[in-house]
């Protein structure tokens, strides 16, 4: 460990935390210098988020000390931490959907005049803060009217305004696209210049190498090591995190088109007023269709209209044999063999208090109806099967899913749909918050699935990832499907060009 | 035709429903246009109703006040608007120039009639009495308790051993009686029951029967109101006495109002209805037949 003479800015000494059935942190040391960006890495469930929460007083730690400038501090709640100048973005967006953007940004320190909040000053301040992040939105609208990604940026902006000494970002970039990530990084760099210490958690190794000065790796709640970023290479880093070699990084460009022939599904003129303009799309069995686009471009909308969450009001969907599908509600879509793994897992995905087993069985149970209960034994077998296949880190299948780490919850979501064995599966940001090991795992899974004939529609902000597994990529902009790339045309450059193109191109 | 506003407390019991029915009937017979407002047991609603009647400009107001206090300012408003107000069945403690007259029975007197009956019936024998009170805090409960206690005061042979509220309802009357019976040695310790209304008595009679005792003989039953169902019980020998509270308060009220409207005759400030005692000697079956269609 590089140990400077002066005291580190923030230091954790032997921090431990035990949950029923899990030792989340086992005597972890961590130190953060002023003026550095320090990456905290590890697999899903390694204990990164738990460490952050112990540092900021969101959890009571079971042992260990926290030192700020060499002095022991004991933040009992996040307000204390804020008082010490530690601003945090927790893993899930933790903002209030019912308040306006400006109110979210200024909660707790609103500008007041004669004891009353000055709305105008508050909104002006909010606009200024957000403009640093290149976000030009109506700050007087409620937060819930913006997509998760926008909310994520707002959460970062809030933490930045609050942090005087330390800024902690727990997977802040999970649902951002490259442009937003760059903006966030610009802000991070300028804060580093100002002498703040920044903790950065991410599963994107490219981002780690781009921005961080030092990395600390956790595995199973223990400290594995801490090194200067420039001294370490990718392979070794992955090695440290997983404790084994990653077999190969999936990079197989330009898939040949899946068996051409009868399409499995054909959407014609499919759309919904105010959500997504009518589009045409047909999907072959075994095909992976990627969807690319900027924040709020209408990718999620595309998925939701297809799945009947926001039922379409124009066009129709047909099966390969020409029968028209009724897609008026999620139930209809599921009956037609669809599955949908939503983007916002906290509100749309997990049933937090139900166990891993129940969460995995839910969609299948809903499809076969309440009367024919899947026997416990079968449920357990199913759950254990996927816990193994997807490497879900949980002591057993009976743990409430809300207590799992973020990435593991995502895997449970995936498992829920895989057990229903859908013929058409929509994945909205499936790799959000998933570690490198599992990332590779999931991409392999996606490939396996389409080999077995499942059709997939995958929405992702990670263009590389789309390149890796898509047979075809749809580019969405301003709620229009503006381009379709196939075969060798699927490259990051092409996608970026289509996303950025000023004129709408003809849809092939 | 005259327009008269009638603010009724609510419809919490059969007796009250009968009062409403009779008032409507009386108004119809006299060609009076009656504006009826049900207050759902709430004083604030009654005050609202009175204010609305005044705003509407009715010719007179009948009110059965839910509680004695709190009427001064609204009665003053009525007086300013020169609308005569007549109180039905319960009194108010405002100054008596704020209303034309009050028609009703004396609640304390009712209680003491019941108590007196028990005193006479026992003729000096020792007796432990249990009491089923009305809704805690309501004026009939307070007054009927006081009246009864006045009547048995100084009679060493009569002891009030348990008193609990039965909320004027049959269900609670039965439930409370059940626990009285358990608490007093299976009921062997109880010689008489006094209930603040007939409904509770009817419930309690069932409880006594289910405990294997004979109401009316093992345990004497006296209550107040004289609703039809208690006469059935009396006819079957299961209840002993009841004190009548007539639901026809509107008749005398309208009479007084008519006289006043015609030539300004001031009626007496309190028109007391009779608190008649019915016992098994009064041919309960006949009374039942007579009363059963009055809307109780």
């Amino acid at each position, binding site marked *: 460990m590089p140990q400077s003479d002066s005291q580190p800015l923030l230091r954790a000494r032997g921090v431990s935390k035990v949950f029923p059935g899990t030792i989340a942190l086992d005597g972890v040391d961590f130190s953060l210098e002023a003026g550095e960006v320090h990456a905290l890495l590890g697999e899903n469930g390694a204990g990164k988020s738990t460490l952050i929460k112990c540092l900021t007083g969101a959890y009571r730690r079971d042992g260990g000390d926290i030192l700020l400038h060499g002095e022991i501090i004991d933040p009992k709640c996040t307000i204390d931490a804020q008082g010490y100048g530690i601003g945090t973005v927790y893993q899930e967006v933790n903002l209030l959907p019912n308040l306006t953007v400006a109110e979210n940004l200024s909660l707790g320190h609103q500008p007041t005049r004669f004891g009353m909040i000055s709305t105008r000053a508050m909104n002006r301040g909010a606009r200024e803060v957000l403009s640093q992040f290149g976000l030009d939105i109506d700050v007087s609208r409620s937060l819930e009217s913006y997509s998760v990604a926008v909310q994520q940026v707002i959460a970062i902006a809030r933490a930045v305004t609050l942090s005087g000494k330390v800024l902690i970002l727990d997977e802040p970039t999970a649902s951002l696209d490259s442009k937003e990530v760059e903006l966030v990084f610009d802000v991070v760099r300028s804060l580093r210049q100002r002498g703040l210490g920044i903790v950065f958690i991410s599963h994107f190794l490219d981002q780690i190498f781009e921005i961080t000065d030092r990395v600390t790796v956790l595995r199973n709640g223990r400290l594995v090591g801490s090194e200067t970023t420039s001294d370490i290479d990718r392979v070794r880093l992955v090695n440290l995190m997983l404790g084994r070699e990653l077999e190969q990084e999936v990079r197989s460009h330009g898939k040949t088109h899946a068996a051409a022939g009868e399409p499995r599904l054909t959407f014609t003129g499919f759309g919904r007023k105010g959500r997504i303009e009518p589009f045409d799309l047909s999907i072959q069995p075994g095909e992976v269709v990627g969807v690319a686009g900027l924040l709020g471009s209408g990718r999620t909308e595309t998925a939701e209209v297809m799945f009947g969450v926001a039922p379409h009001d124009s066009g129709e969907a047909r099966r390969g044999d020409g029968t028209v599908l009724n897609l008026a509600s999620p139930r209809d879509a599921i009956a037609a063999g669809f599955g949908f793994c939503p983007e916002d897992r906290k509100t749309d995905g997990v049933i937090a208090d139900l166990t891993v087993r129940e969460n995995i069985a839910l969609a299948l149970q809903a499809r076969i109806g*309440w009367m024919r*209960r899947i026997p416990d034994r079968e449920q357990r077998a199913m759950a254990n099967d996927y816990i193994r296949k997807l490497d879900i880190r949980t002591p057993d299948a009976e743990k409430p899913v809300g207590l799992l780490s973020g990435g593991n919850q995502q895997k449970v979501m995936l498992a829920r749909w895989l057990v229903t064995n859908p013929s058409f599966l929509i994945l909205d940001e499936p790799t959000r918050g998933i570690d490198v090991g599992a990332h590779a795992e999931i991409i392999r899974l996606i490939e396996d699935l389409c080999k077995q004939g499942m059709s997939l529609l995958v929405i992702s902000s990670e263009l590389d990832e789309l390149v890796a597994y898509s047979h075809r990529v749809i580019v969405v902009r301003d709620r229009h499907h503006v381009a379709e790339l196939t075969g060798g045309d699927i490259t990051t450059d092409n996608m970026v060009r289509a996303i950025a193109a000023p004129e709408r191109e003809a849809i092939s | 035709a005259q327009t008269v506003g009638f603010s009724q407390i609510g*419809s919490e019991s059969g007796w009250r*429903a009968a009062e409403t029915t009779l008032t409507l009937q009386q108004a119809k017979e006299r060609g009076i246009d009656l504006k009826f407002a049900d207050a759902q047991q709430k004083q604030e609603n009654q005050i609202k109703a009175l204010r609305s009647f005044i705003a509407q400009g009715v010719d007179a107001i009948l009110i059965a006040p839910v509680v004695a206090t709190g009427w001064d300012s609204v009665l003053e408003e009525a007086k300013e608007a020169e609308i005569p107000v007549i109180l039905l069945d319960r009194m108010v403690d405002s100054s008596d120039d704020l209303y034309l007259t009050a028609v009703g029975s004396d609640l304390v007197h009712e209680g003491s009639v019941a108590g007196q009956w028990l005193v006479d019936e026992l003729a000096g024998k020792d007796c432990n009495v249990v009491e089923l009170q009305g809704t805690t805090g309501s004026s009939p409960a307070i007054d009927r308790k006081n009246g009864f206690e006045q009547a048995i005061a100084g009679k060493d042979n009569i002891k009030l051993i348990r008193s609990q509220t039965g909320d004027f309802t049959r269900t609670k009357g039965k439930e409370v009686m059940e626990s009285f019976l358990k608490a007093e040695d299976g009921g062997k310790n109880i010689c008489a029951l006094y209930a603040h209304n007939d409904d509770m008595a009817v419930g309690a009679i069932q409880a006594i029967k289910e405990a294997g005792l004979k109401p009316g003989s093992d345990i004497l039953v006296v209550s107040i109101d004289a609703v039809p169902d208690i006469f059935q019980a009396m006819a079957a020998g299961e209840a002993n006495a009841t004190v009548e509270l007539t639901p026809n308060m509107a008749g005398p009220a309208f009479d007084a109002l008519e006289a006043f409207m015609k030539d300004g005759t001031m009626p007496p400030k309190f028109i007391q209805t009779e608190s008649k005692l019915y016992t098994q000697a009064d041919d309960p079956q006949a009374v039942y037949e007579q009363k059963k269609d009055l*809307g109780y």
Partner: protein
Amino acid sequence: MNGLMLFMRRIWPQLLTLAVIVGLISIMFPGFFQISIANGRLYGSPIDILNRGAPVALLAIGMTLVIATRGIDLSVGAVMAICGAVAAWGITEGYGLFATLAMALAAGLACGLWNGVLVAILGIQPIVATLILMVAGRGIAQLITEGAILTFNHEGLIFFGSGSVFTIPTPVIIGVLTGAIITLIVRRSALGMLIEAIGINLRASTLAGVNTRVLLIAVYMTSGLCAALAGIIAAADIRGADANNAGLWLELDAILAVVIGGTSLLGGRFSLIASLIGALIIQAVNTGILLSGFPPEFNLIIKAVIILIILVLQSPTMRTVAVFFSKDPVGASDKEKETVAP
């Protein structure tokens, strides 16, 4: 075996509370446990608690399911009044026992359907949706009885209130049977899990394909049905339908029973058995107050204090404290679950 252990762990606080309260009553009133047979029916204070507790227990069954879906049903008291009135009206009009019961139960189901449609289809918040029927329902009941107590003398109907089977009072049997049947249906089928899923996260459940609308309506209809049974019992008990007072404020007791039973008002995990014990706890308190002989003006204060004590002892914080003192390291961090789940 493991299941039984889990189950006992779930309900022991309720059982303990009940035992303590019964213990207190029997100290105050030594004759408490005397049980005899009168008129071919078990007779004694413990029986009273079971018998008088039956209506609240029935309401609590339906209420538990409703609360598990993160709803609440304020109308159950009024529905009791309606169904009691329908039963009394049916029997006095001479429809015969079977038809009368069918009509009363159908009325309960219809009320539940109305609530369910308001909540599930129109998306009205449960408290308000059921408040409508709470207000109007009593009016409907009075409309049927025309404001009076509609008395009847049909022995068949009376049997449901004060009859007995093998010396056990009918209301107790109805309560236990209903509890058992609904528990079986809910736990043997997938309903229980689906209901919990709805209560925890309605949107996510819908997206997972759960038929949330139908389930919500079914749950409110179950609550209506339970209220109908309670209404029939209440009417049969006093041989008359008292539209004004039948079930008055009983919805609060039912909700209290569910909460004492440990089901969260925020929906999710539920236990019907625990709610039933909760109902018995409430009735034990009521009966205890009656047996104690205190003047009635203290009833409310006593009840409030006892309830507060029970709830405080059962609150998550207190449980942590208790576990802390028993030095159980695993349970000690239990609290974290409740307080921090970002």
